[in-house]
């Protein structure tokens, strides 16, 4: 935390800023911080923890499936494990991990001192953490969700699943949905209002595009699943009949509501990952991304199309052929934006000069996995072929190539890439390469044969299988691959822990990267930017060398804003400075509100109206204090430094 590393601003000014922005020391500060960097790191660590938990669940299942007819796990235990594996990886790992990166990086990428709503940001994290704990409390109770992450009714109606397993699932997802919606709203507003002056939309990093589209999608999609879960909970505990045919309900209603959410959500899990690659890969190719505009447009159009393909999860439900044909065609079309991105990355590598650093390996590996996952997706888009492929291991292979390939590989690459920024130290390069090759080989050993056993007809979501299917040998290989992949994750963990204290000191810009976050010290000071930069291009730190335009960004001269905890708010379209935003100080309110919600949901879980009421009262009071009038923004002209 050396203030001296920042050029330009006098030391006493920087001291003053530091005092204003630094989180309070001790336990209070630890609980009350609203610093986006601290919250981002928390997101990353928590999500990484859930990755490991979900991974351990997967490994347990792989032992059971290594040979036909094994009896390590009871069917019930297996069903709980595969359900929690899906829930954990998709809800508790994949999106929060990306939120972590975005939380940490957005203000740094955009040239802002914090997110638009720092306290909402903290609330979003606390709710995520408590929702994760809520979902995992089911484990010690022995009643983890057991209906799959897709949780199809009526198998999950009370009649067929009388425990609290599914209540934990449905309430947990509603709870987590609050975190997602709050976080997404925060990203959208941050983008609109808290960019540095001059950061027009055509200068946004692709990661920002990715997270933005994902956030907008979340705002539209998450309510669908929250509603679906709420209706299910009502069906189970208040004997409504939204999904039960006995009362005129419709089982397919769940599938529509779930996939209207589920499919866009899958894109929300991969677009920020693709953004990480689009931003970081060019650094190691020593040139800007080829076809920035195309990639940005393809990101947005993927998301828009992503809302029109949910029925391809329901090809076998007996919907009319005309509808199926439409959704099948739409599912083919969505391959086009992805193809654009792939071609852009290959063109970037082709025309650039690759540096074989660990992050580059992950990003290049990602491109290949993306293609494999993409073409298997292309096969499932074909309605006729999908009637055979769906619910076999081919789909398992497809979704793991997509989700691990497009989420985990960029994320691990991203960890290697931004680790120096976050900690100030480099990760070990040799260990990094070992990590990559272990993970890459393990991954393909584990998941490529799944295509084959899928084509051989092995159904998904089975706790055991018959030797007659002839897939025993492949499954053994898959289980071996899974453990190899896990070993890679272990190496990563070791590298992270060792490098935190023993890694080489990084300096502000160890990769010679072009974007704003590399203009500040590593790790960045609490106030991010001593002065608010003014942006003139997509590559503020490469401007002199690329010399694309005569304009230059001003990074060390600009608004100081040292009258309090302040940052600048811009006009939405032109990115002109508009107002000075007063940012909130450390606050326990987010934690208290999240705790209150935890109480409400616990009350709902056990249908205890007193607990529910107490939680609601508590949360209401906290929100009342939160919303008490405060000086939000000032219109006074900012002072300019330099």
């Amino acid at each position, binding site marked *: 935390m050396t203030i001296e590393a920042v050029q330009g601003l006098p030391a006493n000014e920087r001291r003053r800023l530091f005092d204003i922005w630094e989180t309070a020391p001790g336990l209070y500060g630890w609980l009350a911080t609203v610093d986006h960097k601290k919250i981002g790191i928390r997101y990353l660590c928590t999500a990484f923890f859930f990755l490991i938990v979900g991974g351990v669940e997967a490994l347990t299942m792989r032992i059971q499936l290594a040979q036909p007819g094994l009896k390590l796990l009871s069917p019930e235990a297996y069903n709980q494990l595969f359900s929690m594996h899906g829930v954990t990886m998709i809800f508790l790992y994949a999106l929060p991990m990306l939120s972590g990166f975005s939380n940490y990086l957005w203000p740094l990428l955009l040239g802002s001192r914090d997110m638009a709503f720092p306290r909402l940001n903290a609330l979003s994290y606390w709710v995520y953490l408590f929702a994760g704990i809520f979902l995992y409390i089911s484990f010690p109770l022995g009643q983890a969700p057991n209906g799959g992450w897709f949780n199809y009714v009526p198998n999950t109606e009370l009649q067929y699943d009388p425990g609290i397993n599914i209540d934990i699932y449905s309430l947990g997802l509603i709870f987590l949905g609050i975190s997602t919606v709050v976080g997404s709203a925060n990203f959208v507003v941050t983008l609109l209002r808290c960019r540095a002056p001059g950061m027009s939309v055509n200068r946004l990093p692709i990661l920002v595009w990715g997270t933005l589209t994902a956030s907008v999608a979340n705002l539209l999609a998450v309510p669908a699943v929250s509603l679906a879960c709420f209706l299910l909970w009502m069906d189970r505990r208040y004997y409504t009949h939204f999904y039960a045919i*006995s*009362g005129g309900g419709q089982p397919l209603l769940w599938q529509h509501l779930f996939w209207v959410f589920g499919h866009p959500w899958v894109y929300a899990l991969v677009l920020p990952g693709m953004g990480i690659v689009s931003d970081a890969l060019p650094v190691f190719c020593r040139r800007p991304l080829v076809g920035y505009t195309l990639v940005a447009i393809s990101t947005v159009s993927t998301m828009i199309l992503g809302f029109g393909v949910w029925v391809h999860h329901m090809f076998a439900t007996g919907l009319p052929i005309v509808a199926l044909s439409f959704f099948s065609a739409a599912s083919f079309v969505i391959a086009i934006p992805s193809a654009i991105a792939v071609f852009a990355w290959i063109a970037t590598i082709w025309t650039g000069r690759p540096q074989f650093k660990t992050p580059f390996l992950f990003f290049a590996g990602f491109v290949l996995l993306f293609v494999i996952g993409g073409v298997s997706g292309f096969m499932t888009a074909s309605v006729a072929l999908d009637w055979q492929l769906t619910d076999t291991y081919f789909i398992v292979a497809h979704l793991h190539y997509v989700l691990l390939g497009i989420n985990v590989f960029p994320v691990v690459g991203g960890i290697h890439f931004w680790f120096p920024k976050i900690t100030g130290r480099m990760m070990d390069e040799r260990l990094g390469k070992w990590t990559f090759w272990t993970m890459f080989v393990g991954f393909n050993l584990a998941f490529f044969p799944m295509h084959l056993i899928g084509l051989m007809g092995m159904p998904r979501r089975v706790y055991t299988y018959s030797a007659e299917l002839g897939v025993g040998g492949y499954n053994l290989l898959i289980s071996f691959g899974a453990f190899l992949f896990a070993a890679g994750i272990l190496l990563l963990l070791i590298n992270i822990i060792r490098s935190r204290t023993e890694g080489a000191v990084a300096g502000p810009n160890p990769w010679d990267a072009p974007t704003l976050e590399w203009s500040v010290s590593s790790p960045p000071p609490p106030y991010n930017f001593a002065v608010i930069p003014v942006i003139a291009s997509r590559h503020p730190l490469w401007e002199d060398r690329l010399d694309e335009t005569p304009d230059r960004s001003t990074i060390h001269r600009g608004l100081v804003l040292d009258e309090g905890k302040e940052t600048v708010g811009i006009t939405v379209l032109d990115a002109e400075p508009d107002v000075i935003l007063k940012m909130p100080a450390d606050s326990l309110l987010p934690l208290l509100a999240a705790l209150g919600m935890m109480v409400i949901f616990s009350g709902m879980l056990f249908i205890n109206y007193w607990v529910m009421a107490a939680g609601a009262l508590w949360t209401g009071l906290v929100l009342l204090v939160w919303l008490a009038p405060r000086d939000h923004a000032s219109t006074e002209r900012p002072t300019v430094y330099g």
Partner: protein
Amino acid sequence: MRSLFGAVGLAFAWASSAIAQAPPPAPSAHTSYSGASATFDGAGKRGEWTSQARDYANTRYSPLNQINAGNVATLKIAWTFSDGTQYGHEGAPLVVGDTMYLVTPYPNIAYALDLTKPSPSIKWSFQPNPSPTAIGKACCDAVLRGWAYADGKLIYNLLDAHTVAVDAQTGKELWRAKMDDVDKGVTMTMSAFAADGKVFVGNSGGEMGVNGWLAALDIGTGKELWRAHAVGPDKDVLIGQGFNPFYPWMKGKDLGVTTWPADMWHTGAGSSWGFISYDPEQKLVFYGTSNPGPRVPAQRPGDNLWTSAMFARDPATGQAKWAYQFTPHDQWDYDGINEAVLLDMPIDGKMQKTLVHFDRNTYAYTIDRTNGEVLVAKNFAYQNWSTGFDMKTGRPIVDPALEPKPGVKLDRVCPPDIGQKDWEPPAFSPNTGLLYVGVFNICMGLTDHEVSYIPGTPYDGMEMQRFSVDGKDGNWGGFIAWDPAHGKKVWEIPEKFMVMSGAIATAGDLVFYGTTDGWFRAADAWTGKILWSQKLGSGVIGQPITYTGPDGRQYVAVATGVGGAAMVQKSRAGFPPRGNTLYVFSLNGDAIQAPESPSSGSTAPATATPQ
């Protein structure tokens, strides 16, 4: 006290007639609406009531006219008799000579009451002690719908599937025949029917997956002469050379097997628990068969012959002459057990020998009783399951939206399982040419559940909620007059509860009926105007009779004791308590009086109890 009762009754009669539907313009000079007539064969002497329907044709018409529209308002209770049983009382007392015969619901105790003495005076009683297991096997209360008198014997069915004959003079058991196995769910609740020197009995248990039958027993010995099943191969159904149904779809070999999924007919029900009628001229008995089993139609595709149908059989051999299925593939438990009233009437100017049948499916059929051709089929109350009637094929047209599917709730099917008219028999008056019948005004919410056949348990699967056609506070029943030749309702008296009592008509141009909430009413046979009403101790689901006592007075008698299917209304406000009492009415309540001094030497009633 009595005058107070009368005043109240009068006031009520007036009030009730005010709420009754305005009668249509009365036909000029009291000519018969339909021109229908009946033979009244099999009726006893003028003042007697010797069988449940009084005659073979099932008219429930008495030629007595001492009580008439002019004086019925002075009708008062003459005497009462309580038998102490609690289950629903559905039968009509019989009056033969100077004795009245009455049999209680389970435990089916028979009483003979001496009418020459101040009543009630028990001549004898008889306790048959049927098995209590039967209580839990009877679908709709442990009832008995009647008893027969023939050749000096009182013959009736016991709930545990036996038929017993008792000496009418002494109350001694003469014979007892085991007709079926109660452990398999077979009970017997119908009234035995005596004609042609035989007694005809049938079984109940259509909800229990029984195999339905009608049997003829020798009156003297109880020996079974023949037994005709409703389902199964032709040899079991007693279908042979002489069988000639009118409609082609009912012709063919072994239809009682081929219209069922493999072997399902064994448990296909088609029991017979309604009233039988007899045409001595053509030598034919007519009776209906119950719903198919299981009640869930999804489990038994096909027409399910010969359930929910009517048979015309030769009483000597049991061979069927014709049959007609009212509700093919009965999906709502509509049954076809309701009685046939045998009338001759002009239809389209031509005199026809017909039978009139109010089916639970809400069609009132006028059928040529010589060959089974449907001449008239019209709705006598509200229904929505059928969109019309195909006179060509003789089949109702079913609304596919109201066909139940397992697990899927249908919100409103009208009528419900018990129809818009259940077993409660109508009356016919040759003066008006009308039939008088208690009807319902109800619907059901229905959810079917697929069901296992487990012997001795219900083979049922219908989950129902019943409610009025007219919504939450609507009426559940009514009493109507029906013109069978034109298929038209002539008048209607709305009632708050389902009308489940039988009706009688008299030469005094009166019709009598009772209500579930305990009103016993007399109405003008022409206009439906209520002329007299009396509230009784429990609901009336039995059948009234009228007779001339040894003292020459005309009496009207009816047993109260709510129960049976009427219990579906038990949670409604105003539903009466159970408890069986026979009420006998006369003008001003006059009756044979006790001797001046209570005699200590009066003979103790003879009792006969099998040990």
